[in-house]
């Protein structure tokens, strides 16, 4: 059970950490100053959430690994983030659509964790994250609506972003031995239970954005068991190079 909790916490931490690293790539490259600041701010919140979950994952594991050991000294096969968050940023529309899909999921997951988890520390971190992600979700959904219901060019492009990303969303709600055992112990919610409310929330946003929800045409999976796209390895190489080259380096 303790191992399952460790695994579950790693997934939460890895989702936030990898997306934070991706969003951080926009720093200095945003399409407008406001969006540059927004994406960096969202990245910062996610990084904070990742630190809290990875620290707790290390404590629950009990082998003395701290947040840095988990973030910088695991290989790509040991990361268990969903594939969606490791995908390259693409253009601003791709990034904001990915953010919207993820934010709506993260909000539901954190709300369920904060309301249901019998682990006090897990629910405390989630309760804090809910406040932050609610703000992110508002921002990303407003952008999806603005681009979808914008010019024919922006509409066309954001619909393409949605179509491209859609097959990566099923993985967010895929349960396995880890999540089923965590749910049975009252530690984390069953992910399948979040899918319907997520679809309803997305439906609402896409309707307003005049976008069409794609047909379900297969689901990309593998992230939760460490089988990633090649993009993750490049991301990790950049994220991990400094502590691996100079272990123990301090500012």
């Amino acid at each position, binding site marked *: 059970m303790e191992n399952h909790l460790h695994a579950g916490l790693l997934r939460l931490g890895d989702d936030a950490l990898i997306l934070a690293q991706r969003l951080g790539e926009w720093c200095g490259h945003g399409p407008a*100053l*406001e969006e540059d*600041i*927004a994406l*960096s*701010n*969202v990245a*910062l*919140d*996610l*990084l*904070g*959430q990742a*630190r*809290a979950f990875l620290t707790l994952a290390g404590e629950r594991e009990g082998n003395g690994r701290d947040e840095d050991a988990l973030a910088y000294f695991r290989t790509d096969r040991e990361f268990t983030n969903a594939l969606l968050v490791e995908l390259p940023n693409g253009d601003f529309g791709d990034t904001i659509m990915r953010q919207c899909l993820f934010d709506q999921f993260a909000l539901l997951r954190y709300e369920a964790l904060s309301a249901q988890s019998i682990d*006090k*520390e897990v*629910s*405390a*971190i989630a*309760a*804090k*994250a*809910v*406040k*932050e992600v*609610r*703000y992110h979700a*508002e*921002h990303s959904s*407003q952008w999806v609506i603005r681009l979808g219901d914008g010019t024919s060019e922006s509409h066309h492009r954001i619909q393409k972003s949605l179509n491209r990303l859609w097959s990566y969303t099923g993985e967010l709600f895929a349960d396995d031995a880890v999540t089923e055992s965590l749910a049975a112990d009252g530690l984390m919610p069953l992910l399948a239970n979040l899918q319907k409310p997520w679809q309803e929330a997305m439906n609402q946003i896409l309707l307003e954005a005049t976008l069409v929800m794609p047909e379900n045409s297969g689901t990309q999976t593998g992230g939760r068991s460490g089988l990633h796209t090649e993009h993750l390895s490049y991301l990790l190489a950049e994220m991990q190079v400094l502590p691996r080259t100079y272990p123990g380096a301090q500012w």
Partner: protein
Amino acid sequence: MVEERLSRIQACLSNVQDPELPFLSITELGMIRGCEIDQNGTAVILLTPTYSGCPATDAIQDDISEAVSEFETNFRVKLVHSPAWTTDWIDNDTREKMKRHGIAPPDGNSADKAFLLGKERKVSCPRCRSANTKMISAFGSTACKAHFQCESCLEPFDHFKCI
């Protein structure tokens, strides 16, 4: 004896400034959640971060250690996440202080979700008090602020987000 020790620490903490808002103390911002003596006789200072990823949290821990270590050797700072920090813990005097420094304080209370979600923003200009303002950027210079502009006096200003 214990009370004297704790009140000395509390007094010291109310002089530790927030690095991003140096006219406010971490106590005024509601970041100090208490101070207690544990079974080993160590003074434990309970600190809660405003936002999970606020980069000032590390600096604040260092500032606390520096200030308290001038008179106390046996203490530690403990980060607590629950209950999650809320702007409801910022009192009215502190909100007035923010206004005097050109920052629009969090208005109302965090239970007002309509406000948080941008449905209705009742942010008035800290300079001319006009209610005719618009949001320029949902995210501002720090995680806790958004950026606004006054339509009456045209002054841009920071707004402390209500969470």
